[in-house]
């Protein structure tokens, strides 16, 4: 095990500006590649890096400079596309939204795939079942009658009602942090419920009853044990547990 060392570096970046303090951090990554071995294993990498950089930057450094076989998904690099949810020091986060300085880089930083989903290679998991659960809640506006010529009207308050759950980026950080989901992959999981909430509480939508019936299923909202893991895990700050509670309440009162 190594500890982080501080050493002053000459300016390195193209802008040639003020010196950056680099540290050496250890990334302990859960590796798995069935083409090579049926077993997963931990591997340590040492990287010299500015602690103000993202975990994603460190993963890139490892992939680009040390081991090209390290595999993970990513795209936007600023917390918008939902590609890079992973377990960092035992907690679900987006690698691109986690700064190294914030996760005790003096100790080895563990990085592994999100839990409860089939690992395909290193940090890449099978997302299909996750998206299937999402599709199963009918995540689209359902209306009846003729379409208006102009926009449908909605008050600012009605719009605000479901604002929180429109932020979801489908990264699966919530669903894969849920102990109920770990034990039973059939459970819809928080993300699907969040997306159902987004429509159930949209004043323009008329499919609320249908969606509530889907979520009334044995694998639906009643499985939730209110552990708040999902809320803690959400990189978009959505109050996931609250949304699930609101759906439960709507099921009881049939008012939404």
């Amino acid at each position, binding site marked *: 095990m190594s500890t982080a060392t501080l050493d002053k570096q000459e300016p390195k970046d193209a802008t040639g500006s003020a010196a950056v303090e680099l540290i050496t951090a250890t990334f302990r990554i859960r590796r798995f590649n069935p083409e090579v071995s049926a077993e997963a294993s931990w591997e340590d990498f040492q990287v010299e890096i500015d602690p103000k950089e993202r975990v994603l930057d460190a993963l890139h450094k490892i992939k680009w400079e040390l081991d090209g076989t390290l595999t993970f998904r990513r795209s936007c690099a600023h917390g918008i596309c939902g*590609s890079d949810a992973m377990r960092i020091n035992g907690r679900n986060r987006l690698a691109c939204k986690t700064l190294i300085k914030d996760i005790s880089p003096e100790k080895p930083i563990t990085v592994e795939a999100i839990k409860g989903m089939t690992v395909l290679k290193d940090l890449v998991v099978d997302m299909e079942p996750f998206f299937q659960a999402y599709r199963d809640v009918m*995540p689209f506006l359902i209306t009846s009658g003729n379409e208006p010529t102009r926009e449908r009207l909605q008050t600012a308050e009605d719009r605000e009602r479901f604002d929180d759950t429109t932020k979801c980026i489908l990264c699966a950080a919530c669903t894969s942090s849920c102990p109920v989901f770990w034990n039973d992959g059939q459970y819809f999981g928080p993300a699907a419920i969040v997306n159902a909430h987004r429509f159930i509480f949209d004043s323009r939508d008329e499919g609320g009853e249908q969606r509530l019936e889907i979520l009334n299923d044995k694998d639906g909202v009643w499985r939730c044990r209110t552990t708040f893991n999902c809320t803690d895990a959400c990189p978009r700050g959505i109050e996931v547990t609250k949304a699930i509670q609101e759906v439960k309440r709507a099921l009881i009162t049939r008012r939404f």
Partner: protein
Amino acid sequence: MKIHKYDTVIVGAGGAGMRAAIESTKRSRTAVLTKLYPTRSHTGAAQGGMAAALANVEEDNWEWHTFDTIKGGDYLVDQDAAEILAKEAIDSVLDLEKMGLPFNRTPDGTIDQRRFGGHSRNHGEAPVRRSCYASDRTGHMILQTLYQNCVKEGVEFYNEFYVLDLLLGEVDGVRKTAGVVAYELATGEIHVFQAKAVIFASGGTGKFFKVSSNAHTLTGDGQAVAYRRGLPLEDMEFFQFHPTGIWRMGILLTEGARGEGGILRNKDGERFMEKYAPVMKDLASRDVVSRSIYTEIREGRGCGPDGDHVFLDLTHLPPEQLDAKLPDITEFARTYLGIEPYTDPIPIQPTAHYAMGGIPTNVLGEVLADNTTVVPGLYAAGEVACVSVHGANRLGTNSLLDINVFGRRAGIAAAEYAAKNDFVELPESPAAQVVGQVERMRDNTGTERVTEIRKALQETMDANVMVFRTEQTLKTAVETIAALRERYLHVSVQDKGKRFNTDLLEAIELGNLLDLAEVTAVSALARKESRGGHYREDYPNRDDVNFMRHTMAYREVGEDGVESIRLDYKPVVTTRYQPMERKY
């Protein structure tokens, strides 16, 4: 190798690809091939809004919008296309609302609108509120809404399939679309998709710059594939640098921040845009603001110990307004800079943002093989395409509009074409080129590394092909890129496997960036004038006599196998607006 057969194949599942898919799936058997899961596409990063002259909050009309688009594009815009864009904008926004998009609302319950750069009332009199928005995550909401409607329509997706080649077949001496070849990330398998119609909607190419607002995956694959098949690329020298990227990181802070009242300040706290654009000030067009920022920096009025950035000041805006209208970008400042935007100004610098150029199309989305000839069955829409509605500089909020208007048009046109035409016979060994490319890359034992070449490419692009350009910097870039292309032949990858080999695909993406960077620099070198996003310090004026025309760049391969770029030019379509001096 697997062979699939569809009427219509769409390459890309961003805004343009999914808008097209919603139309073409209703009319033809359609497959969407996308290297990312649809909701990971970079349309989701768009923040500020989508333009349409709805006139919900103040007087506005599509003719003013047309004019602003043409003026914003420094008169290199094809005016017939701009008119379509501005007219169809209105239905395009209303369609999205009906599909479920949660726009912000006015007190009357209609779609709210805000100001954005270059959008004005009555031909430049004053800023106008034309941008329809959903907080500062409009692109996210567009991407989600379109994906939701694809789910509803049962659109068939092939996720994590990388399209690496376009197949054309000759029928009676005419080159027609036959399909595409794709690499499946999960397995390494090669798939041939035979199709009557193909739509490229694969997005931009912003990763050839270092400081960039673009995702790692925006590597211009569609442009590169078309170009290698002998199709031209239009106006590649026009690349937009957005004024407000987070200093050094390039992460975008929307122009909507200035639309809400944010102000740019230099180290003396001066609102410097008043000097450069007395009427529109901080909301002048992006090329103007980016040049003004660099002028401040060059003249010693930049901020920080190295004077290499300026400030975006939001501190005078009420925190409630920031929370309601700009929650994401203020959070970016907190997360990545550790700055509280309520109280501290945010350090920013221009960031590479948007490719105005791309695969040339007409207003139906049909791809052009030269100035006038259409390639039957081939379409392009979105940032990969050049219609050209953005000319030399795109106005903010006009791209989310473009992807919806022209994505829809391409989807309809492609499906209708597929209904009326037969499959073109696949060429012999259709996958040969891709198989060769992949194997060469996997088996190469050279000593060059992707990361080093990419870094050198991005550095030369930032240093030489950015906001200010000269003959000298562009020549340097052309030479550097040529040398990098030579080194690229000796690139080897470490991952030799078949499963999720992103090492291999990054190497292939780098090849695309190199080709497109070269076209960009060569096109820029030949354009001896300044217009919109292309600014030549050695030719600081616009030259309508010699350069009021689109660049068309073709890849040529000599008999000796040596590649070169041939430049040709295409006239601009002018309807009713005569070029005037551009002032803001």
